[in-house]
Structures are given as structure tokens and as C-alpha cells.
């Protein structure tokens, strides 16, 4: 089982390769979309690299549950409702959703995902 440092190193390498950012920019608190300028297609690239790096399988929507964010049952007026938030917590046990829950606009979820969340996701997958 990889250590926290090993996971961070490999996640950092994947993000540097996928996003063309410098090593120093990839810190745990950095947000993927905000600080590292990741776009939606970059997530596909990142997922491919993580799968290869860690020999894991990442299903569609597992890292970023777009199916919840586009479901009328969970989203009202562009904001995720309480059942949606509960669903997100269930699907994303690796992510710190505190900030998102304070202002649950759909576009905020992607913007708040951090490098640390990504590392936690990998650790969660490796432990499964």
C-alpha cells in the first residue's frame, strides 16, 4: 500500500504532465480548476494517468459525479439541494465538502476540488 508521500508524488506527476504546470504549483491546497487551470477535458487526461500510475480503475463519474450535478432531483436553480449534498457526501467520501456546502452552486464543486482531495481519492481507491 503506497504511503501518503508516495501518493502525493505520483498525483503531482500526473497533474504536472496533464496540466503543464510546474512541480512547485502543485501543493495540497491548490484547487484543480482555480489554481491549476484544469478544464473538463483535463479530467479525462488526469484520470487516464492516475489509472496507469496506481493500477486502479476509475469509473465514469467516480471522481467527479456529474450525474448528480445534472439531475433535477438534486439540483434546484443551479444549486445542489440537501438530498443532492447527502448524495455527494456518499459518493465523495474522499473530498472535503465543507466549503461547497456553504455555497452549493453546481459550478463551485469543480472549482473547489483540491490536490489533497485527489490524493484522498487515490488512497480511498487503493484501500478498497
Amino acid at each position: 500500500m503506497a504511503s501518503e508521500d508516495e501518493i502525493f508524488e505520483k498525483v503531482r506527476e500526473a497533474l504536472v504532465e496533464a496540466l503543464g504546470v510546474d512541480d512547485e504549483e502543485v501543493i495540497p491546497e491548490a484547487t484543480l480548476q482555480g489554481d491549476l487551470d484544469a478544464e473538463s477535458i483535463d479530467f479525462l487526461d488526469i484520470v487516464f494517468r492516475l489509472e496507469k500510475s496506481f493500477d486502479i480503475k476509475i469509473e465514469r463519474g467516480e471522481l467527479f459525479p456529474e450525474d448528480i450535478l445534472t439531475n433535477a432531483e438534486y439540483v434546484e436553480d443551479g444549486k445542489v439541494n440537501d438530498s443532492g449534498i447527502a448524495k455527494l457526501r456518499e459518493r465523495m467520501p474522499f473530498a472535503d465538502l465543507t466549503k461547497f456546502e456553504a455555497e452549493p452552486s453546481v459550478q463551485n464543486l469543480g472549482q473547489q476540488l483540491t490536490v489533497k482531495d485527489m490524493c484522498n481519492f487515490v488512497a480511498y481507491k487503493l484501500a478498497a
Partner: protein
Amino acid sequence: MRWFWIDRFTEFVCGSHAVAVKGVSLSEDHLHDHMVGYPIMPNSLVVEGMAQAGGLLVSESYGFGELVVLGKLAKVKFYSCVRTGETLTYRVQVDTIRDDGAAVSGTAHVGDRLHAKALLFFARLGDANESLQGQQLFQPSDLRHWLSLVGIFEVGVHQDGIRMMEKDYPLEDCSDDAS
């Protein structure tokens, strides 16, 4: 201008790799502007050729039934200029194919000379995209025509060596399309 940037496949192995060729000719209008007096193949169109070859390879994995779009190019490098009278050979290799998209490595050669290489990422848009857009974005019959022009069914094989058959890919236009 017709947007065909590969002329023909010389090799096509489903889910694995493909090789396609593109002849660069003085009869192509845009070469007289790029550049004036010194016609060279624009590298943006070299990349488009790689993307078309790779895109069809990926699209076959989805049964040629869904929209596959080029989403991202990475690590693109060019090493030379391609002149009229030369033939580009594109080799594309699947790195990963998933439900939501694929990654393909591509190279472009002129004979033995490496001209370009790139990583191409394709997104599979699927049925949801068509329902959101409200109309079909391509006609299956247009794709069938293109596949025929580039000779996919003349050279294409599955990984077990069995020939690809046109009848295995239902490329029929819907009779009630919204457009």
C-alpha cells in the same frame, strides 16, 4: 473545402492501431497561401489528420454510432516541414479506451523522417449530447460514406484477425430526425 485530412487507411486494427496516408498536393488551394511561393503543409492540418485517423479508430470502439470529438492535444512536437509532392503517413495507437473517452498516441512520418508526434484525447459525447442539443449532429450516412472513401472496410480487421464488415455497423439515417 472538403474536410478530409487523411486519404486512405493502409492498416486498421480495431481497438489497437491504424495507419493512414495523406498526399500533399499543389492542387490543394490553401497551400498557395501557406506560404505564398513556398507551399508547406500547415501543421494544424497534420494534427487534424492524426485526429481523424485516431478519431475513427476510437469511434469504431463505440460501433461508429456516437459522436467522438477531439478534446485535447498534448505533447505535440514538429520536427520538419512537409512539402508538396510528399506523402504523410499517420500512425495512431490506442493508449486507453474508456466509456467516456480515449487517449491515442500519434506520429506523422514522411518516409522514414519523423515529422510530428502528439497525444490526442477524445471525448465520447453519446446520446445525452444529442438530446441536449436537440438535433442530430451528424448523419450516419455521411460517416458511412467517409469510411468507404478511406477504405476502412478494405483493410480493417478485428484483433483476432477477422475482417471488419460494413454490415456490422448500422449506419442508417433516422427517418424522423429533427433537422
